[in-house]
């Protein structure tokens, strides 16, 4: 894991370039090498579905991209700008937590277990980022939060607390909470895995709506039909590396790798 000179930084970014680039990402926990050189690009407005077996490092990759944990090596570039580090002389050092917090505003995250704030109403959950991070006045924040709840079909539940909402409704509030910050990329970590089967559809519908509206999304999921219908690109992740990366039709109908064929035979 050495630091070679990185050619990617010299180039000037243009909108034709990928909005998010991940280069040679490595992460270890104790002696466990969880990410082993993850590489991919995603363009503005694209939806990337990430499939892969349990424990392969999908959640870890998302946490690193959301800057919630530091990588051991590699880089994450948003519009050509390297995230999570700064240059000090000739070496790159991790940003302090306060600076990281600023960079995180541009990347939204939706969690498997929703992680709504239980002490706040649905509307307040969506408002909190606006009022406490972007310092937007409460009145304007409430209007924007209500508009976002409308978009996920929950404006009639604005005053309800998370404990009073179904799992599907909670996840839609969580999506609104991430969306209201106007992120460049929205990351989803198995957003429907914790839901009862009959509640999965309402969340996937909201996500499909976002995709149609041009949101850039990376979705870790086990929902193969969703991946096939909504994604622009499907990725198989295994043992900390990307095994296959292709359009949905190619990925599901004509996979290039033995590992992908084996994985698909289990999920179909």
């Amino acid at each position: 894991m050495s630091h070679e000179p990185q050619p990617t930084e010299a180039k000037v970014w243009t909108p034709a370039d990928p909005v998010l680039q991940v280069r040679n990402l490595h992460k270890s926990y104790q002696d466990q090498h969880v990410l082993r050189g993850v590489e991919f690009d995603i363009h503005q407005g694209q939806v990337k579905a990430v499939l892969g077996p349990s424990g392969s490092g999908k959640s870890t990759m998302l946490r690193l991209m959301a800057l919630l944990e530091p990588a051991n090596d590699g880089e994450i570039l948003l519009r050509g700008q390297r995230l999570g580090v700064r240059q000090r002389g000739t070496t790159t050092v991790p940003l302090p937590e306060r600076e990281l917090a600023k960079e995180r505003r541009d990347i939204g995250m939706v969690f498997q277990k929703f992680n709504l704030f239980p002490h706040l109403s649905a509307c307040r959950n969506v408002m909190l980022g606006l009022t406490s991070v972007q310092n937007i006045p409460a009145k304007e924040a409430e209007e924007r939060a209500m508009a976002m709840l409308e978009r996920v079909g929950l404006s009639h539940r604005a005053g309800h607390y998370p404990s009073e909402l179904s799992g599907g409704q909670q996840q839609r509030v969580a999506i609104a909470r991430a969306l209201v910050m106007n992120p460049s990329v929205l990351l989803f970590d198995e957003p429907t895995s914790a839901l009862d089967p009959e509640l999965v559809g309402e969340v996937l519908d909201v996500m499909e709506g976002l995709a149609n509206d041009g949101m850039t999304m990376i979705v870790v999921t086990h929902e193969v039909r969703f991946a096939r219908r909504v994604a622009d690109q499907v990725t198989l992740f295994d043992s900390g590396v990307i095994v296959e990366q292709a359009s949905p039709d190619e990925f599901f109908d004509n996979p290039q790798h033995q590992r992908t064929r084996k994985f698909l035979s289990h999920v179909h």
Partner: protein
Amino acid sequence: MEFDIGIFVQQLVNPSYLYGAFLSVAVAVLALVLATAVGFAVALGRTSQSRIAQGAAGFYTWFFRAIPALLVLLIIWNALPQLFPVLRQEWFSPFIAAFIGLGIVEAAFMAEIIRSALLSIDEGQNLAGRALGMSPAKVMVKVVLPQAIRIALPPTGNEFIGLVKFSSLASVISLQELLTTAQVGVNITFRYAEYYAAAIIYYLIIVSLLTLLQNYVEKKFLWTSRSKPKKPSTLEPIGQGVHA
């Protein structure tokens, strides 16, 4: 000697009892405020990454859990003024010595309550706050603390009631709190039963009122839309009450 209802009622409405009760509650309130502030710092120290902060916080808890509160009060009132001239001045009253003494002892216990409340908050809450771009301090104040307060409230109520009773220890540093008031009266009249009974009534009233207050505050932390029927807007203040 029979129980004299007349003396009992006379003492019950005696202003010196009321004043004594007021002092007991005031010492307990200020001690709890001090204990919560110091206890929060100690709890942060114990959960911090820094070895030094962990060590200092661990020492504090160990030390003040071991030393009797009575001894701490005697040290603060008798020993410290010998060492520090500033404490020999007029402002350093038994009242101040009592609430500081009880507060720093209580802080060791509050630290444990606060620490376990902080640790009980799901890590996902911290992740969600940080993912929104909140600074660590904002995550603490806006996300973790309101939830930790709800968990810490019931045991804190117990500690508060304990402090009201422990305030009677301050009689050794000549604070005229409730129990001292009764004792002084007894020493003059030898009407033990009547004077102590009056004190019992006062303690019962104080603790009953505190229990009502605790129930009221805990209701504020129920987090359901039904518990706040009056407000049509979604704009109730974030993390109502207590820490505001």
